[in-house]
């Protein structure tokens, strides 16, 4: 009888320890930016065709939870710790967009650039950047939801809006910091690519827009759009 009780106690403790150990906060950061020369090489011949785009950074932050970028959970699906962004989400997404624009052959300009009549101006609002583990039977998946809305305008009168919502997923056996980071990286890349593809689709309807006319410097630095 005592042997059974000992076994039960051991099982209970093992269960608690294995499923309830997610009490430490986790940090996530934006994806590493490639070298400027590498971006320039990738952008040659890209769909951007050197069109100038001013990306106003940071984007506005309209997230439901402003104090954190996600939550850590234990095996009982309880919220046990926070996921913190090392960079403000508004800057995070604006930088990711500028980098992806360069990769596609656009010429992103700093926020202080003076727009010409056909310079494309992009403003944005981040509505969601939230990472959270979802427990399956044997594994768990860290899901990252990223949502933002872009407003594209020109002095010549174009005003267009579009919302973007993407999900990053990383499956493993534990919700480690690496799993959160991989999920965040995937979601960031997806939303930046979706934004640039959509922007190209919009601007291709108006061939004159984005032709070099702004007076300020080009965002030559990999993260230099501020």
């Amino acid at each position, binding site marked *: 009888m005592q042997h059974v009780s000992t076994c039960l106690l051991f099982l209970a403790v093992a269960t608690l320890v294995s499923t309830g150990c997610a009490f430490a906060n986790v940090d996530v950061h934006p994806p590493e930016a490639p070298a400027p020369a590498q971006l320039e090489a990738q952008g040659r011949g890209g769909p951007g065709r050197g069109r100038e785009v001013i990306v106003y950074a940071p984007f506005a932050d309209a997230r439901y939870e402003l104090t954190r970028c*996600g939550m850590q959970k234990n095996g009982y699906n309880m919220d046990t710790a926070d996921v913190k962004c090392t960079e403000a989400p508004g800057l995070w997404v604006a930088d990711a967009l500028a980098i992806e624009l360069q990769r596609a052959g656009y010429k992103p300009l700093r926020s202080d650039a003076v727009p010409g009549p056909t310079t494309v101006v992009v403003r944005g609002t981040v509505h969601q950047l939230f990472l959270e583990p979802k427990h399956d039977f044997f594994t768990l998946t860290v899901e990252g939801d990223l949502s933002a809305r872009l407003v594209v305008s*020109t002095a010549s009168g174009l005003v267009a809006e579009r919302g973007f919502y993407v999900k990053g997923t990383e499956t493993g056996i534990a919700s480690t910091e690496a799993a959160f980071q991989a999920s965040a990286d995937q979601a960031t890349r997806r939303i930046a690519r979706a934004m640039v593809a959509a922007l190209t689709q919009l601007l291709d309807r*108006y061939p004159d827009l984005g032709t070099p006319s702004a007076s300020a410097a080009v965002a030559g630095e990999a993260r230099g759009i501020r």
Partner: protein
Amino acid sequence: MRRPLVVMSVAVSLLVGLAACGRHVVLDPETVDRVNDRAWTVKSEPHRGEGIATDAGPPH
């Protein structure tokens, strides 16, 4: 021998109950697909002569 069974039953009930009380913030993939905009909402077109829409597509 009945006591461990009772303890096990209570423990399992507790686990199931706790598992159900967590909250989700992230959306399921179907909802993400639904809330994603499929196209731009063009509120105003550029003035004529400065990037007016064309059916010819981008210049090559």
